[in-house]
């Protein structure tokens, strides 16, 4: 008797849990659909604005103001004089420069995640410096030996990075780290001159590329970010 009761109650519990899971999945689906629709709607609206030309002027103005602020900070660092005359000079110079070069500094920026990128980039620097120190020890030991044990070769690999800033980060990191120089980039293919076989093998493992992709949230990391976003929206919808 008790056994059948127990079985029944467990069955019921399982059924309830199953239904709850279905509900949750449905809710998540609707949330994802909802966000997708909203994004589409926003894009349509942006397209309309772009068509009328309003959007372009607005972003240009934003670019000019942002560039002016950054350049003004740089000017203060250089100048070191904070009286009214020099500050006025600085504002005039920076505004003029920003007007001339407003499309350069913010050419390829993806909006929204700048702070995360900055934090990850700062966390990347110590690792890079450690690698550079290793590189220099490597080169010094090579040069100081009487018979230099080098075996130069060219390595070719395809990258998954998209924006130019991430490509620059990867290429300059490669140039600065042990025994490798970026020789050419053509359609996303890196040609790297490596000083020895061991270094070339390490490069093919792609550790550094993954790190750079992680900094700039590219490739497969994008997917993870999207899922996390959906979960957050689900949370807000429930409460």
């Amino acid at each position, binding site marked *: 008797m008790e056994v059948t009761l127990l079985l029944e109650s467990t069955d019921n519990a399982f059924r309830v849990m199953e239904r709850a899971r279905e509900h949750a999945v449905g809710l998540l689906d609707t949330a994802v659909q909802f966000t997708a629709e909203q994004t589409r709607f926003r894009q349509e609206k942006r397209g309309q604005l772009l068509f009328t030309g309003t959007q372009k002027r607005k972003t240009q103005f934003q670019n000019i103001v942002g*560039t002016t602020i950054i*350049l003004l900070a*740089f*000017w203060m660092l*250089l*100048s070191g*004089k904070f009286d009214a005359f*020099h500050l006025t*000079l600085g504002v005039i*110079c*920076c505004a*003029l*420069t*920003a007007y*001339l*070069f407003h499309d*350069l*500094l913010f*050419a390829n920026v993806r909006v929204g995640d700048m702070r995360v990128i900055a934090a990850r980039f700062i966390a990347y620097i110590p690792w890079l410096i450690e690698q550079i120190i290793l590189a220099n020890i490597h080169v010094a030991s090579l040069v100081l030996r009487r018979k230099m044990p080098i075996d130069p070769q060219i390595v070719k690999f395809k990258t998954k990075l998209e924006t*130019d*800033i991430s*490509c*620059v980060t990867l*290429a*300059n990191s490669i140039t600065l780290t042990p025994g490798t120089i*970026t020789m050419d*980039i*053509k359609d996303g293919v890196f040609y790297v001159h490596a000083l020895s076989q061991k270094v070339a093998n390490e490069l093919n493992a792609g550790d550094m590329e993954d790190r750079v992709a992680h900094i700039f949230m590219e490739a497969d990391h994008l997917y993870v970010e999207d899922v996390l976003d959906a979960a957050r929206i689900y949370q807000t919808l429930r409460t």
Partner: protein
Amino acid sequence: MIQESDDVIVKAVARLLVPFIVVYALYVVMHGHYSPGGGFQGGVILAASFVLLGVSHGLEKTRRRMSEKAARVVSSIGVLLYGGIGALCLILGGNYLDYAKLGKILRVTPAEARSLGILGVEIGVALAVMAVMCTVFFAIFTAEESPEDYRSVE
């Protein structure tokens, strides 16, 4: 005629550096009487920034900011600024480039007038130098050329 470079790295680095180089050049011009530098050096750095932009992003994008015609006008304005300030001092009864006499029309003390006059002259020199260097750069890099020409020159 330089096309836009297909090198991602040089393009991106130039894009990040050029505004800062221009601000640095303006700093060198404006602070010429406290620190080393002045009109000529600042003008050269300004021109160097334009050269970097032209080499990395192609001549078209550079022309949008500083065309040959604009360079001609700007160089004339620079020389006019330099000569005008000097001549103004002559008119006001001093020697050529005797800045202290400028105090009469600017209504400031002679010391301040001297400082402002030097600033004006340096801006004029910087504009002239920058414009002339840009003209030279355009003249060299827009010349019709073919590989045979290089060989014959060498």
